[in-house]
């Protein structure tokens, strides 16, 4: 560990003041031998913003909680965490509480659930600020408009962005030296995200607070971090100045993350580059480098021992990889699969036992004349009396048979309601819905875990779906295995229950259930927004493949313009219950016509690390 510590000291050479947060060799294990962190060393200098990036299960949130001394009593913690010189490991609850109260603030992911729903926000901020006046001042500093009026409101009366500003006000109310922000923008719309990121930077500039910014999204970290730390399998993979880590990464995982990131200009003709495999299970970590099983550079030496962070060859930071020098070079190839639109790889496995109807590419001839979905002037309002509000207001759209339309918009624009009406889960108040021939549309939800029945095995769920198709029992069993293959899952997944699967596997199972009887129209409601970058790319590739193979039309609802552009032949942008712009997907990002679309495009994080 001494090399790492020395290297960190060397790296921090310009910073003469004591670090606000000094983490040394921190290891956290939860009951059930879940190793969340395995020896992490990290300093945060006064006024510094450190972006802590990692996939779910990497240990990034655990590190944030450890900094606050908020880990549950059941966790076994070793190492040292000094918050302004106060030890947060092994000390009493009361010592940690006082350190937290005096030196730290926290902003969490979902401001709706992170605020107390039964208490006015002013009072909640005042608990941290000490007085009502100080609370108003904190709300002002967090740029909450009309702070006095807002202070008298409850969280549910505020918009998502305002709620997060209230959270930030609460975090900075006690003038802390460190703010831990754990995925503070993940639950927010992209334009609101941009505002919140700008606010956090401003607050750092004004107050000099350091910020530990935890996120799964490199691009978001790039927006505000001075330094970026990449966490993988409970270990620090790479850390360095933000611009260096983004533009000269030397850990193969960082390189892969950058490549798998869906951008506004990802080529649509080829599949997205993806990382093979899934993040390691923190209950069964390999003895060596945790990334080795997925790493294209891996060799036996990588599996022998955990690599320690050492001076990076390409930048001023540290990297924990035996091949750090090579990874930036040509030897690292992230898997690039051939285009699903051309000659799909693995077509044989997709060729399943039941006739699928005519196969054709998405741009080819359609099996049925007419659209797969036609919505004409539909309206839908919710609420009673004075509170009745039109959510969808005279919307028309068409998904051609075999075609794909991505419906993009911010939360509350009516996109999900539109999708629910399209698949018949909701009845419109007015207008017409015409669904093309070929059976009822199937639906894939955002939270795949919640949409699967917890007490049924995957096989039972698939067979239940197939029973409606009149297959006998042996045929159903054969067919479910085929469907699992189709979504890239091994046959033995059929015997498992949802909680025994990873997030990525659950999303695949949800997809398998939706296409077990191939529908003419597949409707997806934000299927990738809960997934990590590399998993999101995998699911998008899978959707493109399935669509090409099964000739399905697709209605894809998302808040993510880049994903919309990738998956949709056409993109429709929704705002206020109407479609404000619709066009070929290539044009929407490059040449948005409507100002609202332009604002959405402008708010996409773009990997431009600030100086």
């Amino acid at each position, binding site marked *: 560990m001494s090399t790492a510590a020395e290297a960190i000291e060397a790296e921090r050479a310009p910073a003469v003041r004591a670090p606000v947060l000094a983490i040394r060799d921190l290891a956290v294990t939860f009951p059930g031998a879940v190793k969340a962190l395995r020896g992490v060393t990290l300093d945060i200098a006064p006024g510094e913003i450190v972006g802590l990036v990692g996939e779910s299960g990497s240990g990034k949130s655990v590190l944030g909680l450890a900094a606050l001394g908020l880990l549950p009593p059941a966790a076994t913690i070793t190492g040292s965490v000094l918050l302004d010189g106060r030890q947060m490991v092994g000390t009493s609850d009361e010592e940690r509480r*006082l350190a937290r109260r005096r030196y730290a603030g926290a902003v969490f992911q979902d401001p709706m659930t992170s605020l107390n729903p039964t208490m006015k926000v002013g009072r909640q901020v005042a608990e941290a600020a000490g007085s009502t006046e100080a609370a108003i001042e904190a709300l002002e500093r967090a740029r909450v408009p009309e702070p006095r009026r807002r202070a008298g409101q409850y969280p549910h009366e505020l918009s998502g962005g305002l709620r997060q500003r209230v959270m930030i006000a609460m975090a900075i109310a006690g003038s802390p030296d460190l703010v831990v922000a754990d995925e503070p923008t993940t639950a927010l719309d992209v334009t609101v995200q941009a505002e919140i990121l700008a606010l956090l930077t401003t607050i750092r500039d004004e107050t000099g607070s350091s910020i530990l910014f935890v996120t799964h999204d490199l691009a978001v970290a790039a927006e505000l971090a001075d330094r970026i730390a990449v966490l993988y399998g409970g270990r620090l993979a790479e850390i360095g100045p933000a611009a260096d880590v983004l533009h000269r990464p030397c850990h193969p995982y960082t390189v892969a993350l950058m490549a798998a990131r869906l951008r506004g200009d990802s080529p649509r003709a080829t599949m997205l580059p993806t990382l093979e495999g899934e993040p390691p299970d923190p209950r069964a970590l390999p003895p060596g480098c945790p990334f080795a099983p997925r790493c294209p550079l891996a060799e036996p030496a990588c599996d022998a021992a955990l690599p320690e962070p050492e001076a990076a060859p390409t930048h001023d930071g540290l990297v924990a990889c035996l091949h750090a020098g090579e990874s930036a070079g040509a030897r690292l190839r992230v898997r690039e699969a051939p285009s699903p639109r051309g000659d799909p790889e693995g077509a044989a496995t997709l060729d399943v036992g039941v006739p699928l109807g005519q196969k054709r590419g998405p741009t080819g001839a359609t099996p049925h004349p007419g659209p797969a979905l036609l919505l004409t002037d539909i309206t839908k309002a919710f609420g009673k009396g004075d509170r009745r509000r039109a959510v969808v207001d005279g919307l028309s759209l068409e998904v051609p048979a075999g075609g794909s339309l991505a419906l993009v918009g911010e939360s509350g624009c009516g996109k999900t309601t539109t999708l629910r009406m399209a698949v018949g889960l909701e009845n419109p108040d007015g207008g017409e819905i015409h669904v093309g021939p070929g059976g009822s549309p199937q639906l894939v939800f955002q939270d795949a875990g919640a949409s699967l029945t917890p007490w049924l095995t995957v096989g039972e769920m698939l067979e239940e779906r197939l029973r409606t198709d009149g297959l006998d029992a042996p045929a159903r069993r054969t067919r479910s295995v085929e469907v699992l293959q189709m979504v890239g899952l091994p046959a033995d997944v059929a015997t498992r229950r949802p909680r025994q699967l990873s997030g990525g596997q659950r999303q695949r199972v949800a997809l398998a259930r939706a296409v077990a009887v191939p529908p003419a129209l597949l409707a997806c409601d934000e299927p990738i927004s809960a997934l990590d970058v590399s998993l999101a790319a995998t699911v998008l590739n899978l959707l493109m493949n399935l669509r090409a193979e099964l000739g399905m039309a697709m209605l894809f609802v998302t808040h993510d313009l880049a994903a919309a552009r990738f998956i949709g032949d056409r993109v429709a942008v929704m705002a206020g219950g109407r479609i404000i712009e619709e066009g070929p997907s290539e044009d929407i990002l490059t040449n948005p016509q409507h100002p609202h679309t332009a604002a959405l495009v402008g708010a996409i994080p773009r990997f431009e690390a600030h100086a």
Partner: protein
Amino acid sequence: MARLVLSRLAALAVILLALSAIVFALEAMIPSDPVRAMVGASATKEAVAAKRHELGFDKPLPVQYVRFLGRAATGNLSDSLRTRRPVVTDLGNFLPATLELAGAAAIIAAVLGGLLGIATARGKGTAPRLLMLAGASAPPFLLALALLMLFYSKWHILPSSGRLSSSITPPAGPTGLLVIDGLVHGRFDVVSDALWHLALPAFCLALGPAVALGRTLRSSLQTVLTQDHIRTARAKGLKERTVLLRHALRSALNAPLTMGGLQVGLLLAGVVVIESVFAWPGVGLYTVQSISSTDFPAVAGVTLVLGALYVVINSLVDLAQIVADPRLRAA
């Protein structure tokens, strides 16, 4: 808020109507003759018929029901066949005692249940939980007898029956609740003696509901304590006590309040047994005696009043839930 009150009043009317219909139908179906019971076995046929006509029992059933409703609407619940007094007068005499007993029990249940729920929410306090569970699983009459044996027969700490010692004259009015009346008139001897008499029956009545409330509050608190906003409260550096009492408790009240409203029904049913055991001169005792003498006007009156009480209390529960959770106010 106004809409809620209106809808509850409408519900109250519907429920009372249904209750009255059930009571009336029961009266019509049961093969006992209240008129015969009134006039006595030696009365002549003519006398019976005259009495029957006088009381309206010779009219068709729907007409009897409408007449019954009409009288009830004007606050006339007929005369008790047993006591020969108007049922309303009887209820006026017996209801305050029951309200005092049930009210005391409700307070004990809320306090005990709240303490139990809070104490056991974080996996501690297993012993009190088991003890209370054991107490609540015993039938109320058994519990009552056991407590009487200990506190009355063996230790002579608490009285065995009645609302007040015979040596004390209760003050007149205004509520009929002895504790309140005692306070109003500054008669603290009455207050303490009434509380003395209340202790055992109210506790016996309260224990079951207290355990139900405590368990509901416990599981509700346990759910709330895992929520994000609790983590936020801890991140602020608030004391664990503050986190629990100020942040978790209020968010956790919805389910226990619902449970409390439902328990009122059980409490009112338990009153019948407990009043009999402790010779408590309330509606429960009155009901038992009325049933054994097929005194249907009395039974109908009690049913309607207790039914109304139940609906009113559950409406108050709805209101309390809205006060506790501001998100419900928009709905």
